[in-house]
């Protein structure tokens, strides 16, 4: 079964702990279903550092990759049968109602070229 990363985007001003009982319920049910690989809230975006290496020089930018109204607020990694199952759980995230949830398939390590 492939892994999917659910990226939770929400406005930064949002009171992020408001939906706590809902978060606990969703997280617990995913854990019990054996789908949960990892999850976690992220610190506010002012703690982000973006790293780019250009011409061998490492450039650090204080801040996230792109500044928009909605920022990456947290993530789940779920092991699902297919995209439909991942989308179903993405829609259960409280963030889906006031922000957005991006669903990204994670590359199977066996599909990564060995580099020889």
């Amino acid at each position, binding site marked *: 079964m492939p892994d999917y990363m659910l990226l939770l985007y929400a406005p930064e001003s949002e009171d992020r702990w408001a939906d706590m009982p809902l978060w606990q319920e969703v997280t617990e049910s995913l854990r019990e279903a054996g789908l949960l690989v990892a999850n976690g809230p992220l610190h506010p975006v002012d703690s982000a550092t973006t790293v780019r290496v250009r011409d061998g020089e490492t450039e650090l930018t204080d801040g996230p990759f792109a500044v928009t109204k909605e920022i990456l607020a947290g993530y789940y990694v779920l092991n699902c049968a297919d995209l*439909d199952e991942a989308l179903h759980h993405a829609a259960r995230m409280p963030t889906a109602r006031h922000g957005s949830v991006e669903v990204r398939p994670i590359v199977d390590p*066996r*599909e990564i070229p060995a580099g020889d």
Partner: protein
Amino acid sequence: MTDPAATTAVRVFHDERAAVLATLIRYVGDFQVAEDAVQEAFEAALATWRRDGIPKNPGAWITVTARRRAIDRLRRDRSVADRAERLAALLRLDEQEHPPMREASAIADDRLRLIFTCCHPALDLAARVALTLRTLGGLTTGEIARAFLVAEPTMGKRIVRAKRKIAHAHIPYRVPAPEDLPDRVRGVLRVVYLIFNEGYSASEGDRLVRSDLCSEAIRLGRLAAELMPDDGEAWGLVALMLLHDARHAARVDERGTYVALQEQDRSLWDRDRIGEGLRALRRAVRLGRPGPYQLQATITALHIEGSDGDATDWARIAELYGALGRLTPSPVVELNRAAAIGFAHGAEAGLTLLDPLLHDPALERYQPLHATHAELLSRAHDLPSAVRAYERAIALSTNAVERAELERRLRTLTG
């Protein structure tokens, strides 16, 4: 010179390609490998059939050959990195080497899976349309690109990207779960109707390919309705498309001028299509769940009946637009309802309904609103206002055929 091998190959391509492909995708688990294998099978068919004669069951020959080509590809293809998945696919294919008689229902299931995957909402809408035409319709990338007035490499990229997303994101190859089914069926019908409208409403582009789009959409709609016979909206959509398409030839005269329904040469109407459309509509009505397509088809059927000499039943049409507006509220539906009320119960009643739309800034530049406004004003004998409304509609018209018709109506007022 006739080429029976080529004629047969073309027929099998048209009638059976989608079914063969649908089943192969399920075994192989990869759109691209399956599609390449089917393509190779048709290429091989031409050479082999010309040399050895046409087999008794050409469809079965294509199925077996495509399966062998898929096995070869899977054995060779190192890009299918997951060894276990590749072996499982090979096993499924090998078991089918001597296939038992396949149930018609199993074939139907595979085609349904293919439709739902091509129309999956996780794909961009334009990609859904392109992929559906490519895999289910068998159109080439070039044909689809010309029909949508897009450069061929752009369309090619769109299709490749969609297939890659299906593979990488594991978009499932199955009929959706019951709780998702109503939404997903609506999504499929939407793609089919979009294809139809692209072919029907076009005033530019490659006309031949464009009318192919209408035929293709009707074929896909029929397929969806046959596969989901209890879905009233699938039949409603088939009825709607057939009733529109039946009058295609009569919409524009030999000078390219738009011909209003009342003045169309009815000998140009395709009576068989109208008959089939009305049968599909009755079937939808019997299922007892009127949806937007069924309501629109009923309105179209009333227009066709009304042109048979009897007066069009505008009161009934107004009711149907009311029902449609409750299901899918939109200013366009409200505009049509206002026009029907105006024709049924007097222009003043229609103008009253039109008033809020005329004050909606979003509709300020919507040509049909001003054309309808003009028509109702002229029926209400408010000629100076009618002339102004016609002039406004003409100024907003982007379609030459449409503009000529509005100018003709304006001349009958002022002449």
